[in-house]
Protein backbone atom coordinates (compact mmCIF):
# COMPACT_ATOMS: atom_id res chain seq x y z
CA UNK A 1 0.00 0.00 0.00
CA UNK A 2 1.41 3.38 -0.90
CA UNK A 3 1.95 6.08 1.64
CA UNK A 4 -0.76 8.34 0.26
CA UNK A 5 -3.33 5.58 0.05
CA UNK A 6 -2.67 4.55 3.56
CA UNK A 7 -2.97 8.11 4.76
CA UNK A 8 -6.33 8.72 3.09
CA UNK A 9 -7.69 5.28 3.81
CA UNK A 10 -9.73 6.34 6.80
CA UNK A 11 -11.92 8.78 4.94
CA UNK A 12 -14.32 9.58 7.75
CA UNK A 13 -13.51 11.30 11.00
CA UNK A 14 -11.59 14.56 11.51
CA UNK A 15 -8.09 15.23 10.24
CA UNK A 16 -6.76 14.85 13.74
CA UNK A 17 -8.39 11.46 14.18
CA UNK A 18 -7.09 10.30 10.86
CA UNK A 19 -3.64 11.58 11.76
CA UNK A 20 -3.70 9.78 15.08
CA UNK A 21 -4.88 6.58 13.47
CA UNK A 22 -2.05 6.84 10.98
CA UNK A 23 0.55 7.36 13.70
CA UNK A 24 -0.92 4.43 15.62
CA UNK A 25 -0.66 2.11 12.62
CA UNK A 26 2.97 3.14 12.18
CA UNK A 27 3.67 3.46 15.88
CA UNK A 28 6.75 1.26 15.85
CA UNK A 29 8.41 3.31 13.12
CA UNK A 30 7.76 6.52 15.06
CA UNK A 31 8.80 5.04 18.40
CA UNK A 32 12.17 4.06 16.99
CA UNK A 33 13.03 7.51 15.64
CA UNK A 34 11.51 9.30 18.66
CA UNK A 35 14.59 9.16 20.95
CA UNK A 36 16.88 10.60 18.29
CA UNK A 37 14.32 13.21 17.23
CA UNK A 38 13.60 14.34 20.79
CA UNK A 39 17.30 14.41 21.63
CA UNK A 40 18.11 16.59 18.62
CA UNK A 41 15.19 18.89 19.34
CA UNK A 42 16.40 19.35 22.92
CA UNK A 43 20.12 19.69 22.29
CA UNK A 44 20.14 21.45 18.92
CA UNK A 45 16.61 22.72 18.23
CA UNK A 46 16.01 24.36 21.57
CA UNK A 47 19.39 26.19 21.67
CA UNK A 48 18.62 27.61 18.22
CA UNK A 49 15.34 29.07 19.49
CA UNK A 50 17.02 30.18 22.70
CA UNK A 51 19.72 31.95 20.70
CA UNK A 52 17.12 33.88 18.70
CA UNK A 53 15.29 34.83 21.90
CA UNK A 54 18.44 35.87 23.76
CA UNK A 55 19.51 38.05 20.85
CA UNK A 56 16.58 40.34 21.70
CA UNK A 57 17.60 40.73 25.34
CA UNK A 58 20.27 42.39 27.38
CA UNK A 59 21.42 39.38 29.36
CA UNK A 60 24.60 39.36 31.41
CA UNK A 61 25.78 35.80 32.18
CA UNK A 62 26.39 36.60 35.84
CA UNK A 63 22.86 37.71 36.70
CA UNK A 64 19.33 36.44 36.22
CA UNK A 65 17.96 39.77 35.08
CA UNK A 66 17.07 39.96 31.41
CA UNK A 67 15.93 43.18 29.80
CA UNK A 68 14.10 43.17 26.49
CA UNK A 69 15.89 45.43 24.05
CA UNK A 70 14.33 44.41 20.73
CA UNK A 71 16.64 44.72 17.77
CA UNK A 72 19.09 46.97 19.56
CA UNK A 73 21.94 44.44 19.40
CA UNK A 74 21.56 44.06 15.65
CA UNK A 75 21.38 47.80 15.09
CA UNK A 76 24.52 48.32 17.13
CA UNK A 77 26.34 45.48 15.40
CA UNK A 78 25.53 46.74 11.91
CA UNK A 79 26.61 50.23 12.92
CA UNK A 80 29.90 49.13 14.38
CA UNK A 81 33.27 49.07 12.61
CA UNK A 82 34.11 45.81 14.37
CA UNK A 83 31.46 43.92 12.43
CA UNK A 84 32.82 44.89 9.03
CA UNK A 85 36.35 44.19 10.15
CA UNK A 86 35.20 40.74 11.30
CA UNK A 87 33.56 40.08 7.94
CA UNK A 88 36.77 41.01 6.14
CA UNK A 89 38.90 38.90 8.47
CA UNK A 90 36.51 35.95 8.21
CA UNK A 91 36.40 36.29 4.43
CA UNK A 92 40.15 36.21 3.94
CA UNK A 93 40.48 33.39 6.47
CA UNK A 94 37.94 31.25 4.58
CA UNK A 95 39.10 32.11 1.04
CA UNK A 96 42.80 31.58 1.69
CA UNK A 97 42.19 28.54 3.89
CA UNK A 98 39.86 26.74 1.49
CA UNK A 99 42.02 27.61 -1.55
CA UNK A 100 45.10 26.23 0.21
CA UNK A 101 43.34 23.04 1.30
CA UNK A 102 41.83 22.47 -2.15
CA UNK A 103 45.06 22.99 -4.11
CA UNK A 104 47.24 20.99 -1.77
CA UNK A 105 44.60 18.25 -1.51
CA UNK A 106 44.30 18.05 -5.28
CA UNK A 107 48.09 17.87 -5.65
CA UNK A 108 48.29 14.97 -3.20
CA UNK A 109 45.31 13.14 -4.70
CA UNK A 110 46.58 13.37 -8.27
CA UNK A 111 49.87 11.81 -7.21
CA UNK A 112 48.22 9.09 -5.14
CA UNK A 113 45.84 8.06 -7.90
CA UNK A 114 48.02 5.89 -10.13
CA UNK A 115 49.46 2.49 -9.54
CA UNK A 116 51.32 3.36 -6.38
CA UNK A 117 53.21 0.85 -4.33
CA UNK A 118 52.36 1.34 -0.68
CA UNK A 119 49.32 3.50 -1.34
CA UNK A 120 47.74 2.40 1.93
CA UNK A 121 50.79 3.64 3.80
CA UNK A 122 50.76 7.00 2.02
CA UNK A 123 47.02 7.40 2.47
CA UNK A 124 47.23 6.66 6.18
CA UNK A 125 50.18 9.01 6.66
CA UNK A 126 48.48 11.85 4.81
CA UNK A 127 45.38 11.32 6.94
CA UNK A 128 47.04 11.95 10.29
CA UNK A 129 46.98 15.77 10.44
CA UNK A 130 43.19 15.66 9.99
CA UNK A 131 42.59 13.12 12.73
CA UNK A 132 44.48 14.51 15.71
CA UNK A 133 43.21 17.11 18.21
CA UNK A 134 43.15 20.60 16.71
CA UNK A 135 44.50 22.01 19.95
CA UNK A 136 47.58 19.80 19.64
CA UNK A 137 48.20 20.84 16.04
CA UNK A 138 47.74 24.43 17.16
CA UNK A 139 50.37 24.26 19.92
CA UNK A 140 52.79 22.50 17.58
CA UNK A 141 52.44 25.31 15.04
CA UNK A 142 52.77 27.82 17.85
CA UNK A 143 56.01 26.15 18.75
CA UNK A 144 57.25 26.07 15.13
CA UNK A 145 56.47 29.78 14.80
CA UNK A 146 57.92 30.72 18.18
CA UNK A 147 59.82 34.03 17.85
CA UNK A 148 62.95 32.85 19.69
CA UNK A 149 63.02 29.07 19.79
CA UNK A 150 60.89 28.15 16.76
CA UNK A 151 62.05 25.89 13.93
CA UNK A 152 60.71 28.19 11.24
CA UNK A 153 62.93 31.06 12.27
CA UNK A 154 65.88 28.71 12.64
CA UNK A 155 65.39 27.49 9.06
CA UNK A 156 64.85 30.98 7.65
CA UNK A 157 67.99 32.20 9.42
CA UNK A 158 70.00 29.27 8.09
CA UNK A 159 68.85 29.94 4.56
CA UNK A 160 69.74 33.61 5.00
CA UNK A 161 66.20 34.74 4.20
CA UNK A 162 65.94 36.76 7.40
CA UNK A 163 68.62 38.27 9.56
CA UNK A 164 66.84 38.09 12.86
CA UNK A 165 63.95 36.09 14.23
CA UNK A 166 60.44 37.29 13.41
CA UNK A 167 57.47 36.95 15.73
CA UNK A 168 54.68 35.97 13.35
CA UNK A 169 51.92 35.37 15.87
CA UNK A 170 52.65 38.58 17.76
CA UNK A 171 52.45 40.70 14.63
CA UNK A 172 48.93 42.00 13.86
CA UNK A 173 49.47 41.93 10.11
CA UNK A 174 51.16 38.50 9.93
CA UNK A 175 49.42 36.54 12.68
CA UNK A 176 46.45 35.41 10.58
CA UNK A 177 48.82 33.87 8.03
CA UNK A 178 50.59 32.02 10.81
CA UNK A 179 47.25 30.57 11.92
CA UNK A 180 45.80 29.87 8.48
CA UNK A 181 48.85 27.74 7.66
CA UNK A 182 47.97 25.47 10.57
CA UNK A 183 44.33 25.33 9.48
CA UNK A 184 45.36 24.42 5.92
CA UNK A 185 47.58 21.67 7.29
CA UNK A 186 44.67 20.25 9.27
CA UNK A 187 42.09 20.54 6.48
CA UNK A 188 44.17 19.27 3.55
CA UNK A 189 43.88 15.51 4.24
CA UNK A 190 40.08 15.59 3.99
CA UNK A 191 40.30 17.21 0.57
CA UNK A 192 43.00 14.81 -0.57
CA UNK A 193 40.98 11.75 0.45
CA UNK A 194 37.77 13.01 -1.15
CA UNK A 195 39.53 13.98 -4.37
CA UNK A 196 41.30 10.64 -4.46
CA UNK A 197 37.98 8.80 -4.16
CA UNK A 198 36.57 11.03 -6.89
CA UNK A 199 39.56 10.44 -9.16
CA UNK A 200 39.31 6.69 -8.70
CA UNK A 201 35.70 6.76 -9.83
CA UNK A 202 36.62 8.25 -13.23
CA UNK A 203 36.50 5.49 -15.88
CA UNK A 204 40.03 4.58 -16.94
CA UNK A 205 38.90 4.20 -20.57
CA UNK A 206 38.59 7.97 -20.89
CA UNK A 207 42.31 8.37 -20.29
CA UNK A 208 43.19 5.47 -22.55
CA UNK A 209 41.20 6.98 -25.38
CA UNK A 210 42.84 10.35 -24.81
CA UNK A 211 46.29 8.78 -24.73
CA UNK A 212 45.62 7.11 -28.09
CA UNK A 213 44.58 10.49 -29.45
CA UNK A 214 47.92 11.79 -28.23
CA UNK A 215 46.56 14.18 -25.60
CA UNK A 216 49.19 15.59 -23.30
CA UNK A 217 49.09 15.08 -19.51
CA UNK A 218 47.98 18.62 -18.87
CA UNK A 219 45.24 18.38 -21.45
CA UNK A 220 44.04 15.11 -19.92
CA UNK A 221 43.86 16.82 -16.55
CA UNK A 222 42.14 19.88 -17.97
CA UNK A 223 39.59 18.13 -20.22
CA UNK A 224 38.96 14.81 -18.44
CA UNK A 225 39.92 14.98 -14.78
CA UNK A 226 38.55 18.41 -13.90
CA UNK A 227 35.13 18.07 -15.59
CA UNK A 228 34.66 14.55 -14.21
CA UNK A 229 35.65 15.73 -10.77
CA UNK A 230 33.38 18.76 -10.81
CA UNK A 231 30.64 17.60 -8.45
CA UNK A 232 33.12 16.11 -5.99
CA UNK A 233 35.11 19.36 -5.95
CA UNK A 234 31.90 21.29 -5.46
CA UNK A 235 30.76 19.27 -2.44
CA UNK A 236 34.23 19.07 -0.89
CA UNK A 237 34.94 22.79 -1.17
CA UNK A 238 31.50 23.59 0.19
CA UNK A 239 32.00 21.34 3.23
CA UNK A 240 35.48 22.75 3.67
CA UNK A 241 34.09 26.29 3.46
CA UNK A 242 31.64 25.51 6.27
CA UNK A 243 34.29 23.92 8.46
CA UNK A 244 36.80 26.70 7.83
CA UNK A 245 34.13 29.30 8.56
CA UNK A 246 33.38 27.71 11.96
CA UNK A 247 36.98 26.78 12.79
CA UNK A 248 37.40 27.57 16.47
CA UNK A 249 39.91 25.34 18.28
CA UNK A 250 42.91 26.26 16.12
CA UNK A 251 42.50 30.02 16.30
CA UNK A 252 41.57 29.95 19.95
CA UNK A 253 44.61 27.89 20.91
CA UNK A 254 47.10 29.73 18.71
CA UNK A 255 46.16 33.36 19.31
CA UNK A 256 42.82 33.58 21.15
CA UNK A 257 41.81 35.98 18.35
CA UNK A 258 44.67 38.42 18.97
CA UNK A 259 46.90 40.32 18.69
CA UNK A 260 44.51 43.28 18.75
CA UNK A 261 41.74 41.05 17.36
CA UNK A 262 43.59 40.59 14.06
CA UNK A 263 42.93 36.83 13.93
CA UNK A 264 39.35 37.01 15.20
CA UNK A 265 36.69 35.63 12.88
CA UNK A 266 32.93 35.82 13.36
CA UNK A 267 32.82 32.63 15.46
CA UNK A 268 35.78 33.70 17.59
CA UNK A 269 33.95 36.96 18.26
CA UNK A 270 30.80 35.06 19.24
CA UNK A 271 32.82 33.21 21.86
CA UNK A 272 34.62 36.30 23.12
CA UNK A 273 31.49 38.42 23.46
CA UNK A 274 29.02 35.76 24.57
CA UNK A 275 31.04 33.53 26.85
CA UNK A 276 34.29 35.25 27.69
CA UNK A 277 32.76 38.66 28.36
CA UNK A 278 29.45 37.13 29.46
CA UNK A 279 27.32 39.35 27.22
CA UNK A 280 24.92 36.56 26.24
CA UNK A 281 22.49 38.78 24.33
CA UNK A 282 25.13 40.34 22.10
CA UNK A 283 26.84 36.99 21.59
CA UNK A 284 23.48 35.49 20.59
CA UNK A 285 22.91 38.26 18.06
CA UNK A 286 26.29 37.51 16.47
CA UNK A 287 25.34 33.82 16.50
CA UNK A 288 22.14 34.53 14.58
CA UNK A 289 24.23 36.29 11.94
CA UNK A 290 26.44 33.18 11.88
CA UNK A 291 23.30 31.02 11.42
CA UNK A 292 22.39 32.99 8.31
CA UNK A 293 25.74 32.26 6.72
CA UNK A 294 25.43 28.56 7.58
CA UNK A 295 21.86 28.51 6.28
CA UNK A 296 23.04 29.69 2.87
CA UNK A 297 25.75 27.01 2.84
CA UNK A 298 23.26 24.35 3.98
CA UNK A 299 20.75 25.23 1.26
CA UNK A 300 23.43 24.97 -1.41
CA UNK A 301 24.57 21.66 0.03
CA UNK A 302 21.07 20.19 0.18
CA UNK A 303 20.41 21.31 -3.39
CA UNK A 304 23.52 19.58 -4.65
CA UNK A 305 22.91 16.55 -2.48
CA UNK A 306 19.30 15.99 -3.50
CA UNK A 307 19.77 17.14 -7.08
CA UNK A 308 17.81 15.23 -9.68
CA UNK A 309 15.27 14.06 -7.09
CA UNK A 310 17.55 11.33 -5.82
CA UNK A 311 15.92 8.84 -3.56
CA UNK A 312 16.80 9.39 0.06
Amino acid sequence: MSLAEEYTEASDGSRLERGLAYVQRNSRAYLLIAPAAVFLLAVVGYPIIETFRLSLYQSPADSNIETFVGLQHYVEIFNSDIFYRLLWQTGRWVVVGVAGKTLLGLLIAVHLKGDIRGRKFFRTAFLIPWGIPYAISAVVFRWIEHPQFGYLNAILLKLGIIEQGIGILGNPSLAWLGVVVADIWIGTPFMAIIFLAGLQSIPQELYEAAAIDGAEKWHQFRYITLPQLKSVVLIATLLSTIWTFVSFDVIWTMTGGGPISSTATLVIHIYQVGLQNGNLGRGAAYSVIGFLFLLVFAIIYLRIYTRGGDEL
Partner: protein
Amino acid sequence: MTMAGHDRSGLRKVRLYGVLIGLLGLMMLPFYAMFSSTLKPESEIFAAPATLVPSDPSFQAYLQVWTQTDVLLWVGNSFIISVGTVVLTLLLAIPAAYSCARNDFVGKRTFLLAVLVVQMFAPVVLIVGLFDVITQLGLFNTYLAVIVPAAAFTLPFNVWMLYGYFKTIPVALEESARIDGASQLQILTKIVLPLTKPALVASITYTFLYAWNRLLFVLTFLTDSAKYNIPRGVFSMVGALQTDWRMMLTVSVIGIIPLLILFAFLEEYIVAGMTAGAVKE
Protein backbone atom coordinates in the same frame (compact mmCIF):
# COMPACT_ATOMS: atom_id res chain seq x y z
CA MET B 1 58.38 -2.16 -25.23
CA THR B 2 61.51 -0.41 -26.43
CA MET B 3 64.32 0.59 -24.13
CA ALA B 4 63.42 4.24 -24.52
CA GLY B 5 59.85 3.48 -23.42
CA HIS B 6 61.15 1.69 -20.37
CA ASP B 7 63.35 4.61 -19.47
CA ARG B 8 60.53 7.08 -19.88
CA SER B 9 58.10 5.19 -17.65
CA GLY B 10 60.90 4.54 -15.15
CA LEU B 11 61.69 8.22 -15.03
CA ARG B 12 58.01 9.03 -14.57
CA LYS B 13 57.82 6.63 -11.64
CA VAL B 14 60.85 8.22 -10.01
CA ARG B 15 59.35 11.66 -10.43
CA LEU B 16 55.98 10.50 -9.10
CA TYR B 17 57.47 8.97 -5.97
CA GLY B 18 59.75 11.98 -5.63
CA VAL B 19 56.79 14.35 -5.52
CA LEU B 20 54.82 12.05 -3.20
CA ILE B 21 57.65 11.72 -0.72
CA GLY B 22 58.26 15.46 -0.94
CA LEU B 23 54.60 16.19 -0.16
CA LEU B 24 54.57 13.66 2.64
CA GLY B 25 57.74 15.16 4.07
CA LEU B 26 56.13 18.60 4.00
CA MET B 27 53.04 17.32 5.81
CA MET B 28 55.18 15.46 8.35
CA LEU B 29 57.38 18.47 9.22
CA PRO B 30 55.19 19.57 12.15
CA PHE B 31 55.43 16.06 13.59
CA TYR B 32 59.18 16.20 13.24
CA ALA B 33 59.28 19.56 15.03
CA MET B 34 57.08 18.17 17.80
CA PHE B 35 58.86 14.88 18.29
CA SER B 36 62.45 16.08 17.92
CA SER B 37 61.82 18.82 20.48
CA THR B 38 60.72 16.29 23.07
CA LEU B 39 64.09 14.55 22.74
CA LYS B 40 66.02 17.65 23.73
CA PRO B 41 67.09 18.46 27.29
CA GLU B 42 65.63 21.61 28.81
CA SER B 43 68.78 23.62 28.08
CA GLU B 44 68.59 22.82 24.39
CA ILE B 45 64.89 23.33 23.85
CA PHE B 46 65.33 26.96 24.85
CA ALA B 47 68.24 27.52 22.48
CA ALA B 48 67.90 30.42 20.06
CA PRO B 49 67.94 29.80 17.20
CA ALA B 50 66.58 26.29 17.56
CA THR B 51 68.77 23.29 16.78
CA LEU B 52 67.05 21.39 13.98
CA VAL B 53 68.46 18.07 15.13
CA PRO B 54 68.69 17.24 18.86
CA SER B 55 72.39 17.20 19.75
CA ASP B 56 72.03 14.60 22.45
CA PRO B 57 68.62 12.89 22.01
CA SER B 58 67.12 11.31 25.11
CA PHE B 59 63.72 10.00 26.16
CA GLN B 60 64.04 11.69 29.56
CA ALA B 61 60.92 13.78 28.94
CA TYR B 62 58.84 10.64 28.50
CA LEU B 63 59.84 9.49 31.99
CA GLN B 64 59.19 12.85 33.63
CA VAL B 65 55.87 13.60 31.96
CA TRP B 66 53.87 11.15 34.10
CA THR B 67 54.76 12.92 37.34
CA GLN B 68 55.17 16.48 36.09
CA THR B 69 51.82 16.69 34.31
CA ASP B 70 48.34 15.17 34.61
CA VAL B 71 48.65 13.42 31.26
CA LEU B 72 47.38 10.08 32.55
CA LEU B 73 44.27 11.73 33.97
CA TRP B 74 43.67 13.58 30.70
CA VAL B 75 44.03 10.45 28.59
CA GLY B 76 41.63 8.65 30.94
CA ASN B 77 39.09 11.46 30.68
CA SER B 78 39.43 11.48 26.91
CA PHE B 79 38.56 7.79 26.91
CA ILE B 80 35.55 8.30 29.17
CA ILE B 81 34.26 11.12 26.98
CA SER B 82 34.89 9.29 23.70
CA VAL B 83 33.39 5.98 24.83
CA GLY B 84 30.42 7.74 26.43
CA THR B 85 29.74 9.66 23.23
CA VAL B 86 29.98 6.52 21.10
CA VAL B 87 27.52 4.64 23.33
CA LEU B 88 24.97 7.46 23.53
CA THR B 89 25.14 8.20 19.81
CA LEU B 90 24.70 4.57 18.80
CA LEU B 91 21.81 4.03 21.21
CA LEU B 92 19.99 6.87 19.49
CA ALA B 93 21.16 6.32 15.93
CA ILE B 94 20.66 2.58 15.47
CA PRO B 95 16.88 2.50 16.12
CA ALA B 96 16.31 5.69 14.13
CA ALA B 97 18.34 4.53 11.14
CA TYR B 98 16.73 1.09 11.25
CA SER B 99 13.26 2.55 11.38
CA CYS B 100 13.92 4.79 8.38
CA ALA B 101 15.46 1.95 6.38
CA ARG B 102 12.57 -0.46 6.99
CA ASN B 103 9.49 1.74 7.03
CA ASP B 104 7.87 4.33 4.86
CA PHE B 105 6.12 6.96 6.90
CA VAL B 106 5.09 10.58 6.81
CA GLY B 107 7.91 12.74 8.16
CA LYS B 108 10.73 10.39 7.30
CA ARG B 109 12.15 12.63 4.61
CA THR B 110 11.84 15.66 6.87
CA PHE B 111 13.60 13.83 9.68
CA LEU B 112 16.48 12.71 7.47
CA LEU B 113 16.95 16.14 5.93
CA ALA B 114 16.72 17.85 9.32
CA VAL B 115 19.42 15.51 10.57
CA LEU B 116 21.57 16.45 7.60
CA VAL B 117 21.15 20.12 8.43
CA VAL B 118 22.25 19.52 12.04
CA GLN B 119 25.47 18.19 10.60
CA MET B 120 26.20 21.59 9.09
CA PHE B 121 25.17 23.42 12.23
CA ALA B 122 28.54 23.85 13.82
CA PRO B 123 28.35 23.83 17.61
CA VAL B 124 30.36 27.03 17.95
CA VAL B 125 27.58 29.21 16.50
CA LEU B 126 25.22 27.51 18.91
CA ILE B 127 27.45 27.78 21.92
CA VAL B 128 25.55 30.59 23.66
CA GLY B 129 22.23 28.73 23.48
CA LEU B 130 23.91 25.44 24.29
CA PHE B 131 25.43 26.99 27.39
CA ASP B 132 21.90 27.76 28.55
CA VAL B 133 20.69 24.20 27.95
CA ILE B 134 23.64 22.57 29.69
CA THR B 135 23.21 24.80 32.73
CA GLN B 136 19.44 24.29 32.86
CA LEU B 137 19.85 20.52 32.67
CA GLY B 138 22.27 20.75 35.58
CA LEU B 139 25.01 19.10 33.55
CA PHE B 140 27.65 21.79 33.98
CA ASN B 141 30.97 20.30 35.13
CA THR B 142 29.89 16.70 34.52
CA TYR B 143 31.16 14.42 31.76
CA LEU B 144 27.66 14.52 30.30
CA ALA B 145 28.09 18.24 29.63
CA VAL B 146 30.55 17.21 26.92
CA ILE B 147 29.05 13.85 25.94
CA VAL B 148 25.53 15.17 25.30
CA PRO B 149 26.46 17.89 22.77
CA ALA B 150 29.14 15.67 21.19
CA ALA B 151 26.52 12.94 20.71
CA ALA B 152 24.10 15.43 19.17
CA PHE B 153 26.63 16.60 16.61
CA THR B 154 27.84 13.10 15.70
CA LEU B 155 24.31 11.70 15.49
CA PRO B 156 23.69 12.92 11.92
CA PHE B 157 26.72 11.14 10.54
CA ASN B 158 25.77 7.96 12.39
CA VAL B 159 22.12 8.02 11.29
CA TRP B 160 23.02 8.50 7.63
CA MET B 161 25.85 6.01 7.63
CA LEU B 162 23.74 3.27 9.25
CA TYR B 163 20.59 4.15 7.31
CA GLY B 164 22.45 3.76 4.04
CA TYR B 165 23.86 0.45 5.12
CA PHE B 166 20.67 -1.02 6.61
CA LYS B 167 18.97 -0.43 3.29
CA THR B 168 21.40 -2.78 1.57
CA ILE B 169 20.56 -5.70 3.89
CA PRO B 170 17.86 -7.92 2.34
CA VAL B 171 14.58 -7.87 4.28
CA ALA B 172 14.14 -11.58 3.45
CA LEU B 173 16.76 -12.46 6.05
CA GLU B 174 14.77 -10.76 8.78
CA GLU B 175 11.48 -12.22 7.65
CA SER B 176 12.71 -15.78 7.87
CA ALA B 177 13.97 -15.09 11.39
CA ARG B 178 10.59 -13.62 12.29
CA ILE B 179 8.85 -16.78 11.10
CA ASP B 180 11.21 -18.71 13.37
CA GLY B 181 9.80 -16.66 16.23
CA ALA B 182 12.62 -14.21 16.85
CA SER B 183 11.65 -10.93 18.52
CA GLN B 184 12.30 -7.53 16.92
CA LEU B 185 15.22 -6.88 19.27
CA GLN B 186 16.70 -10.31 18.60
CA ILE B 187 16.48 -9.76 14.88
CA LEU B 188 18.26 -6.41 15.22
CA THR B 189 21.07 -7.59 17.50
CA LYS B 190 21.55 -11.11 16.19
CA ILE B 191 21.00 -10.69 12.46
CA VAL B 192 21.08 -7.08 11.30
CA LEU B 193 23.87 -5.56 13.38
CA PRO B 194 26.47 -8.26 12.69
CA LEU B 195 25.89 -7.68 8.99
CA THR B 196 26.29 -3.94 9.52
CA LYS B 197 29.82 -4.24 10.88
CA PRO B 198 31.62 -2.09 8.27
CA ALA B 199 29.20 0.81 8.79
CA LEU B 200 29.28 0.37 12.55
CA VAL B 201 33.08 0.46 12.64
CA ALA B 202 33.10 3.60 10.46
CA SER B 203 30.51 5.23 12.74
CA ILE B 204 32.30 4.32 15.93
CA THR B 205 35.68 5.51 14.65
CA TYR B 206 34.25 8.81 13.46
CA THR B 207 32.44 9.43 16.75
CA PHE B 208 35.42 8.39 18.86
CA LEU B 209 37.73 10.75 16.97
CA TYR B 210 35.24 13.61 17.10
CA ALA B 211 34.91 13.34 20.88
CA TRP B 212 38.64 12.81 21.40
CA ASN B 213 39.72 15.78 19.31
CA ARG B 214 37.36 18.62 20.16
CA LEU B 215 38.30 21.34 22.62
CA LEU B 216 35.23 23.59 22.48
CA PHE B 217 32.79 21.66 24.72
CA VAL B 218 35.34 20.86 27.40
CA LEU B 219 36.59 24.43 27.35
CA THR B 220 33.08 25.78 27.80
CA PHE B 221 31.28 23.25 30.00
CA LEU B 222 34.00 21.80 32.22
CA THR B 223 35.86 24.12 34.57
CA ASP B 224 36.83 21.27 36.89
CA SER B 225 40.42 20.44 35.95
CA ALA B 226 39.99 16.87 37.21
CA LYS B 227 37.77 16.26 34.17
CA TYR B 228 40.03 17.79 31.49
CA ASN B 229 40.66 15.73 28.38
CA ILE B 230 43.82 15.78 26.25
CA PRO B 231 43.05 18.88 24.14
CA ARG B 232 41.95 20.82 27.23
CA GLY B 233 44.99 19.63 29.17
CA VAL B 234 47.35 20.74 26.43
CA PHE B 235 45.49 24.05 26.20
CA SER B 236 45.86 24.56 29.95
CA MET B 237 49.63 24.23 29.63
CA VAL B 238 49.86 27.28 27.39
CA GLY B 239 50.96 29.94 29.84
CA ALA B 240 50.46 33.65 29.45
CA LEU B 241 54.09 34.32 30.34
CA GLN B 242 55.79 30.97 30.52
CA THR B 243 55.09 27.71 28.82
CA ASP B 244 56.81 24.42 29.57
CA TRP B 245 57.16 23.56 25.88
CA ARG B 246 59.09 20.38 26.53
CA MET B 247 56.37 18.86 28.71
CA MET B 248 53.55 20.22 26.57
CA LEU B 249 54.94 18.68 23.38
CA THR B 250 55.56 15.40 25.19
CA VAL B 251 51.94 15.35 26.34
CA SER B 252 50.93 16.08 22.74
CA VAL B 253 52.89 13.11 21.43
CA ILE B 254 51.29 10.84 24.04
CA GLY B 255 47.86 12.25 23.22
CA ILE B 256 48.10 11.26 19.55
CA ILE B 257 49.61 7.78 19.99
CA PRO B 258 46.23 6.05 20.59
CA LEU B 259 44.98 7.76 17.44
CA LEU B 260 47.95 6.58 15.35
CA ILE B 261 47.17 3.01 16.41
CA LEU B 262 43.54 3.57 15.45
CA PHE B 263 44.53 4.90 12.02
CA ALA B 264 46.90 2.04 11.32
CA PHE B 265 44.18 -0.55 11.91
CA LEU B 266 41.04 1.23 10.77
CA GLU B 267 42.24 3.44 7.93
CA GLU B 268 39.85 1.93 5.38
CA TYR B 269 36.83 2.51 7.59
CA ILE B 270 37.88 6.08 8.32
CA VAL B 271 38.25 6.79 4.62
CA ALA B 272 34.88 5.17 3.95
CA GLY B 273 33.34 7.48 6.55
CA MET B 274 35.04 10.60 5.22
CA THR B 275 33.91 10.03 1.67
CA ALA B 276 30.38 8.93 2.57
CA GLY B 277 28.77 12.35 2.26
CA ALA B 278 30.79 13.70 -0.62
CA VAL B 279 31.36 11.00 -3.23
CA LYS B 280 28.31 9.33 -4.66
CA GLU B 281 28.73 6.03 -6.43
